[in-house]
């Protein structure tokens, strides 16, 4: 919508790339709304990395392309609307940039090349059973003993922990200090003895998040990022990276494309859903909200391009973008009608169960995706917390 001639040319380039290079099986899995296997991601990572498209937002010195926000948004949009999978943002958008900014030379050398090659997977060990929105109340302890920390405690909701090679983890290193002040940021090898991962099945039927138990886990002191007891600063900086991306314009467009496809394919009495006023209007209403989101995001992109800070106000993009994804997913379910009520665990994993029922492929996972999308307004600072941020930091309440 807001492309300059240069951006339009760039968009065409990205589109040609993804259409030519995305492996067919990956495209099919994404189109059907299923979860990818790690092996599928890795084949795609390799092609992206070969083209310099895996971590293009990293600075050139760190192995990236130094792209700005505008290029990044165009890139995401083309990936989403051409059935490329959403990449693991914990690895590429969180720990990568953290290490670039706070890691020491040894840490950078040890991790950045593997991350940039797309072969090393990370998970984020922040939340605990009693530390959710109030993250600073976390209790997992790390005790310094010689050249190592010994970690005890448990993490929960750790997405992808069952596949991850490494976890970046917030631990309490000073029990006496005020909440935020006794926290440290540690890198933990998931193969270390004393770590147990228990996957948690979601209402959508997939095992997305996990519980991670840490029982006398020995972590080399060299894996401390930043200073001891100063981990909160490192942790919070994550929130500053990629804040524009949290508008999720591309992910919204992915959902819009799916809803459009359902609307065109689902027929009643020979007419498509687009011939029915309820669907046409609901689709158009969400389209309008997406245009608003996109315009609003473009406003922040412009600011960032002029080197102005985007400020706490940018929370509004996360707030709206996450709600809108949920509205698209609900529309898809409503559009599919009775077909979306069937649930077949085998179909979620691509074992073809749904075809035996004669259901259209999108129907088999529509309900699960609708449930999955509820996480967008909870994770990464819930909608309530985003409201609080805007109320306090923008409106001064």
């Amino acid at each position, binding site marked *: 919508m807001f492309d300059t001639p240069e951006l339009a040319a760039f968009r065409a380039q990205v589109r040609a790339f993804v259409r030519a290079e995305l492996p067919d099986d990956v495209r099919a899995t994404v189109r059907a709304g299923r979860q990818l296997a790690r092996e599928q991601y890795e084949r795609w990572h390799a092609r992206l990395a070969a083209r310099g498209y895996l971590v293009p937002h990293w600075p050139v010195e760190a192995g990236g392309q130094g792209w700005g926000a505008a290029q990044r948004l165009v890139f995401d949009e083309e990936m989403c609307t051409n059935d490329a999978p959403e990449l693991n943002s914990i690895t590429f958008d969180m720990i990568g940039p953290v290490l670039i900014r706070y890691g020491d030379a040894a840490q950078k050398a040890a991790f950045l090349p593997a991350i940039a090659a797309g072969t090393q997977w990370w998970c984020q060990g922040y939340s605990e059973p009693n530390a959710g929105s109030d993250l600073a109340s976390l209790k997992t302890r790390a005790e310094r003993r010689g050249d190592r920390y010994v970690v005890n405690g448990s993490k929960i909701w750790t997405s992808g922990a069952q596949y991850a090679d490494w976890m970046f983890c917030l631990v309490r290193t000073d029990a006496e200090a005020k909440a935020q002040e006794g926290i440290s940021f540690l890198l933990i090898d998931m193969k270390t003895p004393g770590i147990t991962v228990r996957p948690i*099945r979601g209402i959508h039927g997939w095992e997305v998040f996990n519980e991670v138990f840490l029982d006398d886990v020995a972590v080399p002191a060299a894996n401390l990022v930043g200073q001891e007891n100063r981990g909160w600063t490192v942790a919070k900086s994550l929130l500053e990276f990629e804040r524009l991306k949290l508008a999720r314009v591309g992910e919204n467009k992915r959902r819009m494309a799916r809803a459009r496809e359902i609307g065109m394919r689902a027929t009643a009495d020979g007419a498509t859903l687009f011939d029915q006023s309820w669907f046409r209007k609901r689709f158009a209403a969400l389209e309008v909200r997406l245009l608003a989101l996109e315009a609003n995001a473009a406003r922040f992109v412009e600011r960032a391009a002029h080197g102005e800070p985007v400020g706490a106000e940018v929370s509004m993009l996360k707030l709206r973008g996450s709600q809108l994804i949920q509205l698209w997913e609900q529309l898809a379910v409503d559009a599919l009608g009775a077909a979306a009520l069937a649930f*077949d665990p085998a179909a979620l994993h691509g074992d073809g169960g749904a075809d035996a029922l004669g259901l259209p492929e999108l129907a088999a996972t529509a309900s699960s995706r609708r449930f999955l999308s509820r996480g967008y307004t909870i994770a990464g600072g819930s909608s*309530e917390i985003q409201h609080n941020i805007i109320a306090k930091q923008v409106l001064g309440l």
Partner: protein
Amino acid sequence: MSLFTLDENQTMLADSARRFIERAEDDGARAARDAHAHGCTPERWRAFADLGWLALPLAEADEGLGGSAADLCVLAEEFGRGNLLEPWVACAVLGAGVLAEAGTAAQRARWLPAAARGDRRIAFAAWEPGARFDPARVETRAVAAGSGFRLTGVKELVLGAPGADALVAAARLPGDEAPALFLVEAGAAGCRTTAHGLIDGSRAARVAFDGAPAERLDGAPDARAALWRALDRATLAHCAETIGAMARAFEVTLDYLKTRKQFGRVLAGNQVLQHRLVDCFVAVEEARALTRAAAQAFGADPAAAVRQVAAAKAFVADAARDAWQEAVQMHGAIGMTDEYVIGRYVKRLAAAQALYGDADFHLERVAAAGAAMRAAA
């Protein structure tokens, strides 16, 4: 008789149902049901029969207990509150109900006393692919064959079909505009049933008839009206089930927010969450009042109650959506897990949004009923 206070019998029914469900619906019973291909163990169905719940929807003449729509709603609400997933509404209210409405005396005598005793279970194949919950959209064909008929066509989302002894289905006879109703015995040649789960954990089937032998239910002068009466009655019971589930989801959420602490105080101490809890509470009360009023109107005159029944379902469908979405959001991540109790209610309410017709379908009925009233005025 008060519209909104339960009478003595209804109070007893609700109390005994709640006691039974609290005792019987434990982890073991849930696991047994989930593992059973029919989504219902024979022991459970037998227990329902012993409690009189299978007889409740049927007329005394059919060896039932002659329960009113309002009585059914009282029991149904307890089903939803306890998250029972057995096909009580689908079979005891709807399947047997269509047969009661449309069967001849002989057909009723053959099936209904046995249904009331729990010896026979009947499901109704109400919807066809692409019909968007409209039971009047029927493409299934019936042709005469010998003393009976043969059906050809596909039905989807046949609730309670796995394990049912008979299926009732609508089909069109050559040259007839209005569909007629037929009964197909389970296991008949040319009747292929593909069972599947639903998102709430209950069981249904897709049924393909390919020249399946069928018997016509020709005890009612107007099969379409008979079908709608049975379906509306079941829709009311389904609304009440949903209200029970909404009420429980609300209580679980309320309790959770009163105990979970973040930022040094209970979550329920935040006004923004308090107001949303209030909205959830009000929605349950309003939905229950609307559904009760509709059930009373239906008891007095089913044909005149269409607008109220459709209004109840349209309202409950949206309320169920709001209820599960708020329950998840206010629980945070734990609300998205299968293992914590709220997850089961979330899935049930999400399914209930669309079962027996979604809000869009029933709003069309409300609008059509309004237009008919204006035309008559």
